[in-house]
């Protein structure tokens, strides 16, 4: 499975690169204008045109593009006036912080609920949790963020305004990991860490709610499948006590559920971007969305590329994890 994934990754990557390459050419507009941005001078426009070979045939353009990418040059953002690679690279840990905490919380809530729903199949808890899960699927991410801000910031005053990762009045701690919370703790700056924590709560809760819905649904489905399996039936026929049978179901559900959460991580970067946008979080997501909205197409290319690569890496990590956990994997 792993080998297959790695081998397939190559054409997939090329496909993704081709897609991002074509992105600025959709709609028939002049790519140079899009990439250079409205603030570019005529000289800069010409420079970009020749750098990227935009007067050459498409194939050559793509070759140049590939060459640049492999050297780490994804283009220049006309908004920040810096290399897109730098822009994105320094924002990755910021997004990761939100994503990981959010999905972790979502899993901590979602997995037990899904399991319970499966064990109490077709009873009240099952029906209620399925409906709530459907609700989770139906709330738009950004609206959830706004709603949380409205209730917990405006109405209750418990949470700080959604204006970024740390209170505007506090100096951020020196950067070690990129996470203000961790860096604050590392530096012993508890005021900063505390502020970072309070800013984290609402966006993390939003991500948790969004991620919990599919996790509940899939965990329930997996557990139900286990419960209906041959070996569970046989375990009951062997007179194993209900506790034990439940334990068997849980153990066997572990790998598929973990795999699923991994896929969720990959799929959630999109929603996380919207949360970042609403809370001014300053991660890759907000950067990318701003780039899309304001037409910073070099940055858009970088953002799309990042998303695809991130998904790929997550899938590979999950595969490795499965190989370690599953005794059967070696036999495949």
């Amino acid at each position: 499975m792993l080998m297959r994934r790695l081998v397939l990754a190559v054409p997939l990557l090329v496909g993704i690169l081709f897609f991002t390459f074509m992105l600025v050419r959709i709609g028939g507009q002049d790519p140079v204008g899009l990439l250079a941005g409205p603030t570019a001078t005529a000289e800069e426009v010409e420079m970009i045109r020749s750098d990227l070979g935009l007067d050459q045939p498409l194939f050559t353009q793509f070759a140049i593009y590939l060459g640049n990418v492999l050297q780490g040059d994804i283009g220049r953002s006309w908004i920040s006036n810096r290399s897109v690679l730098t822009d994105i690279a320094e924002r990755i840990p910021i997004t990761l912080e939100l994503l990981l905490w959010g999905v972790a919380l979502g899993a901590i809530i979602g997995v037990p609920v899904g399991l319970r729903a499966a064990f109490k199949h077709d009873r009240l808890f099952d029906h209620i949790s399925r409906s709530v899960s459907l609700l989770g699927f139906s709330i738009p991410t950004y609206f959830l963020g706004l709603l949380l801000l409205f209730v917990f910031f405006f109405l209750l005053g418990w949470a700080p305004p959604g204006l970024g990762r740390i209170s505007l009045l506090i100096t951020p701690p020196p950067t070690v990991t990129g996470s203000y919370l961790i860096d604050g703790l590392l530096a012993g700056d508890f005021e900063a860490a505390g502020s970072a924590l309070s800013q984290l709560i609402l966006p993390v809760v939003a991500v948790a709610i969004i991620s919990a819905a599919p996790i509940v649904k899939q965990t329930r489905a997996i557990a139900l499948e286990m419960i209906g399996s041959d070996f569970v039936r046989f375990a009951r026929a062997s007179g194993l006590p209900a506790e034990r049978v439940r334990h068997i179901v849980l153990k066997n559900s572990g790998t598929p559920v973990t795999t699923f959460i991994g896929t969720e991580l990959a799929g959630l970067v999109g929603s996380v971007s919207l949360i970042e946008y609403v809370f001014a979080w300053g991660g890759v997501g907000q950067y990318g969305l701003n780039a899309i909205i304001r037409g910073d197409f070099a940055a858009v290319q970088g953002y799309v590329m990042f998303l695809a690569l991130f998904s790929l890496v997550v899938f590979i990590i999950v595969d490795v994890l499965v190989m370690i956990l599953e005794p059967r994997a070696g036999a495949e």
Partner: protein
Amino acid sequence: MTLLHVENLHTHFISRDLDNEIQIARALNGVSFDIAPGEVLGLVGETGAGKSLTAYSVIGLLKPPARVVEGSITFDGSDLRGLDEEGLSKLRGSEIAMVVQNPRSSLDPLTRVGEQLIRVHMAHRRTTEEAARKRAIDMLAAVGIPAPEQRMRAWPHELSGGMAQRVLIAMALMNEPKMIIADEPTTGLDVTVQAQILDLLRELVESRNVAAMIITHDLGIVAHYCDRMAVMFAGRIVETGPVMDVFAKPAHPYTRTLIASTPERLREGKRAILGGGAPPNLFDLPPGCHYVERCEFADAGCRQTPPWETVGGGHYAMCARLAAVREAANE
């Protein structure tokens, strides 16, 4: 003195369809049979006759919407229908053990084989893990698995079908059961392996005086390995008796058709498998005898529930037309 006494067992699947009409599939319609201690009963029938369902009804492992709606089940003096889930699970795997089809997929994929054997033993006996381990190794040896200590650490997916079935038999023996229910124990196994498994089963059952119910659709197995047999059709046992007697003088039209075709099939190298003809629709069974649509001897009297008739010593059949059948046989 009977070990298992099942009388008038009715098991139905009750559900509502999309039109909110109640749909009842009458899967078992008055199943009655006995098993004496140490006796091997072969339960034969086509697919869908209700054989496995009988076994699961006895040990109380029916999945909704299936329910036992009527009948009595007495095992070793206890009324099984009166027991709750906890009481039943004390019996399962201990006094009544099961060996099932698909042995490889019936073992917990994430637990080593030895651990599973120990687990079953310790669920029912107060003992140490040491003692359980030793017993597990003994049982693996008893079922003919070479190098049993090493095999204890095997994963289920590493076993062949035959090996896995031996493990299941070992598991069944862990707690010195009074009865083993073997549900199609050799279906899906290699032909050579099948004979080995059945020989093993028969030998163990005899040497330990364990009763057995072998569920199968293969008359050959019944002929070679069982003391008595019960023939099922559409949720009823239509004939029961000592294997020799039933094979020599089948009384019920259904049994006759099957046994008559058996030597020919065996001669042709085919397996003596039951089948042929449309399976009855469990939602809409004919009143009276369920075999009426396929029976060459049916007449108007068959619209009533057929009586149990005695055919010989311990040999009974559920048919109203036995005399006519006997006449046809003597021609």
